């Protein structure tokens, strides 16, 4: 009886993330597919024109020290 009660808290803690993960897998989407008309509009894209935004990021990267997390590509030095 003592052993059982001693085991109970850690087992609960172990089970909690498992329940959350399994619960997450079967999560009911709160925005249904038929409610995503606005989200699917091209004007809602984070990167509607990748070539243009890639060049814009490149211009900033050359002139500023901050880099990364832009969501765009690029390469090379392009110094000066």
């Amino acid at each position: 009886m003592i052993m059982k009660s001693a085991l109970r808290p850690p087992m609960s803690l172990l089970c909690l993330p498992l329940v959350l993960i399994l619960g997450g897998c079967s999560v009911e989407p709160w925005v249904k597919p038929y409610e995503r008309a606005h989200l699917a509009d091209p004007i809602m894209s984070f990167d509607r024109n990748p070539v243009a935004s890639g060049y814009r990021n490149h211009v900033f990267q050359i002139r500023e020290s901050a880099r990364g997390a832009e969501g765009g590509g690029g390469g090379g030095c392009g110094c000066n």
Partner: protein
Amino acid sequence: MAATENRWRYLAGGIALALLSALPGARTLFATVLPEDRADLMYHRYDGGGVEVDGPTLQLRKSVGEAFSVSADYAVDSISSASVDVVSMASPYTEERTETGLSVDYLHNKTLMNLSLIKSDESDYLSETGSFSVSHDMFGDLTTVTLGYSVGNDDISRNGDEDFAQTAKRQNYRVSLTQVLTKDSIMSANWETISDEGFLGSPYRSYRYLDPLSEKGYSFLPESYPRTRTSNALALRLKYYLPYRAALSGEYRYFSDTWGISANNLEFAYTHPFRDKWIFDIRYRYYTQEGADFYSDLFSRRQPFTYTARDKELSTFQSHTVGFGVSYEIKADFWQYIDHGSFNLDFDYMRYSYDDFRDITQGGVAGEEPLYSYSANVIKAYFSIWY
């Protein structure tokens, strides 16, 4: 009544889905899919601070079967530089940079994998980068998680000096999460750590120090940079669909690195379609940066520290950018292989103001010259087709 309402809602949803399947970019929010087949041809021009850069960019993307999509990129920058650095320490020059890229996407169920190779070639700088990323949709396609890794190797030389040969290695680690919040809003969080090792400075640039023996009161010596650098950047983006078919977006990024540089940037943008064919964009971006520990406009003496730099990109400064874009869509009924296309024109005006970088071309007492600032215009004109 409730049943009738639900039925109409369901029917409207079905109609919306049917309409959306015809919209470009629509597929991406319903399931993991390959990128769209499209081609972009762009002319870009940068003009500011004594530097002019222009050239073409071409990108072609085509799916191969149900599971693969292949993309090829080609870009040329023709550079003509008489920047304040160049004018004060060397002679104006011209050069050309060529960038080529190849990318393959592979789709497997809800997982999208990407492998890409980029090569950038200048007369004194060769860079080759390989990237790999994995994206996975989950929770009813409301959440997309992406993990990415890149490794790049650079070969640096110095024009006019055949004995100079240096290398640098760069590794990028990326994690991003895109989340549908409501039927009108979506957010994305991006984290990127970049680690560099090798020659990280410029083979041409010098630092300035007080020299009582010099007529001007100062002299120059070649810069010295640390051989390692690690940086972290966290960006949050939010996009909101307004009630009258327009979109509002905001972005914030925080950056810091092991050289003591920290930066923040904030951007707001508004997208407004007009009738069926026009889309207008306006945007504003603010950037502010605290300089590197080993940066100084004017060091007190010759070789004061191990590391010394006078690169204005490492100094403390702010910039404001105002941008405007217009896009006109065309239906390509005249050619069966083309679905539709668009003509686009994009313009950005930038203003950079430095807190501790002085314009020594203006003359004056050493260390009391006017602070440097400049403005630049960036124009992008491009044509896109979807097929």
